[in-house]
């Protein structure tokens, strides 16, 4: 376990602020509705990456030596824009334009290099392949950058994911990390009921990946899994067991909140609960 207390506190604080931004964005979206469940389940993962693990610089969004992040589960934008805001790529004023007409912040991310968004995503199963292309280029150019691809567990229903899983192993991309936000649900039900993916860790191992399984809300475990050096010649899969809707009690493990309108009453209740949780260090 890491003893780097400062880093852990920084990540926790970052995650707390992300959840507040998410509530504000979701409220601003109003009747447009937003993907709260999957946005919230990835918060601690994104916080660990953006607040600590990843090398990046908001003054130079295209810094060649930065670590790359690809949100393959593009509907998780609430957990992405909020991290970009806390990292200084977006302002709070930007955030509340979320899903509004003419906003740059659509319901799925759109490539915007100044805002630190390298790729447009939203159609599931495409991000890992993008990450492989980036990781191959980074390796060719002898850069130390790491490439992180965040996927959903439901997303692994897509066959294209497994094309990528096979290729990353073939190319021995040890600079590539795929993180599975395993919240157990997808749009219309549980993974088990809709399309059971079984033991996903074994599947990745079978394709030649190095695999770590962590509690996706335990900052200590996330930090250790994501920050440690990968000295193997294998790509790394971090299976993060998460709770859909994590941090907002009305949404936790309630799939009605996969994509839902947050009313002012919901917002007040959720924000009160969040503040009472006392997670803001």
């Amino acid at each position, binding site marked *: 376990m890491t003893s780097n207390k400062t880093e852990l506190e920084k990540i926790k604080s970052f995650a707390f602020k992300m959840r507040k931004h998410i509530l504000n964005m979701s409220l601003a979206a109003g009747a447009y509705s937003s993907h709260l469940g999957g946005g919230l389940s990835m918060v601690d993962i994104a916080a660990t990456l953006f607040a600590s693990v990843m090398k990046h610089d908001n003054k130079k969004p295209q810094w060649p030596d930065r670590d790359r992040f690809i949100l393959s589960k593009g509907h998780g934008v609430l957990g992405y824009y909020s991290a970009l805001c806390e990292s200084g790529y977006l302002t709070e004023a930007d955030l509340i334009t979320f899903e509004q007409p003419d906003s740059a912040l659509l319901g799925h991310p759109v490539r915007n290099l100044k805002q630190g968004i390298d*790729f*447009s995503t939203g159609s599931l199963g*495409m991000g890992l392949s993008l990450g492989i*292309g980036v990781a*191959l280029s980074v390796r060719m150019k002898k850069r130390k950058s790491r490439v992180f691809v965040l996927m959903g567990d439901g997303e692994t229903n897509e066959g294209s994911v497994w094309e990528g899983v096979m290729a990353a192993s073939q190319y021995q991309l040890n600079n590539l990390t795929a993180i599975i936000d395993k919240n157990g649900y997808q749009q219309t039900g549980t993974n088990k009921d809709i399309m059971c993916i079984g033991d996903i860790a074994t599947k990745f191992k079978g394709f030649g990946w190095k695999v770590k399984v962590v509690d996706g809300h335990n900052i200590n475990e996330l930090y250790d899994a994501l920050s440690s050096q990968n000295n193997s010649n294998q790509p790394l899969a971090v299976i993060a067991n998460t709770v859909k809707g994590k941090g907002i009690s009305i949404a936790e493990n309630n799939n009605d909140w996969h994509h839902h309108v947050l009313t002012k009453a919901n917002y007040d209740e959720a924000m009160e609960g969040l503040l009472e949780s006392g997670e803001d260090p």
Partner: protein
Amino acid sequence: MIINKSKAGLWSKIGARATFGMAALDLGNELDELMILSADTSTSAGLERFKRTFPDKYIECGIAEQNMMGIAAGLASEGHVVITTTFAPFQTMRCCEQIKVNLGYMVQNVKMIGLASGVVQGSLGFTHSCIEDLSIMRSIPNIIVLSPADCTETAKALSAAVEYNGPVYIRLTGGSSNPAVYSDDYDFEIGKSITLVEGKDIVLFSTGTMVHKSLSVANELKGQGLSVAVIDMHTIKPIDAEMIQKVCSYAKMVVTLEEHSIIGGLGSAVAEVKTAIQNAPPHLILGLPDQYGKSNDYEELLKNAGLTVSGIIDSIIGFISDKRIF
């Protein structure tokens, strides 16, 4: 890329696919950032020498076209000029949504080469033939669609595509012996059609393998007293609207010819421009029928579709008579 008479002569004997492979070798020397990706089709794309000469610029993606298009976009995002290649149906349809999102939506700098499009692989059946690619690629915003007339134009199109910063689809048609329309270097500009034969009565807008056939058609009809123009429409998107407008101001009849479905390809692209032109001349759309027929030899399939020189002439004469054009 150097293009001359000797190369043009050689290329016409080896076909568009092998020409692509040879042109790729030149590009490998010229472009530091070049990457060529293949979906287990390096031999079919004439890339064996490229693979050996530039192992660091070649990525084998296996039989996984969706992944190939993602890798291509990832590389392009890092500044590479990326060429992807596999047989046309797999290059355009198997990974169509990756093309939409990665190339159309994100406008990544990737050039797709659709090998053996049309019905040259007719004996393998319609899984390997491709009569839909122009239509599909044309409907995706931001993608340039090129359809070269012969091997020299294949090299010219490839050269123009890598110079252009953005996604391009290049459709290769014809067999290993590919009659030459161009026998030496010439000016090629994306979006600018090339008038090969001037004529005032009938204008043949042709693309791909149909360009060479159109030259023979024009020649034969000239013998029958008709003045027939032949225009090489090497760019399907953006279509050369200016030329279409000009032609519509004087021609008595317009014909489009393509080794592609009569739906959605060159014929449709020309018609889309013509529809806004008052008193535009009648338009005969010649191409492959909207059906998956029986497998057959290349020449037989073209013959059955009326896409031989005599078949085209019969269609034109029939149309003239039906519409009482002259």
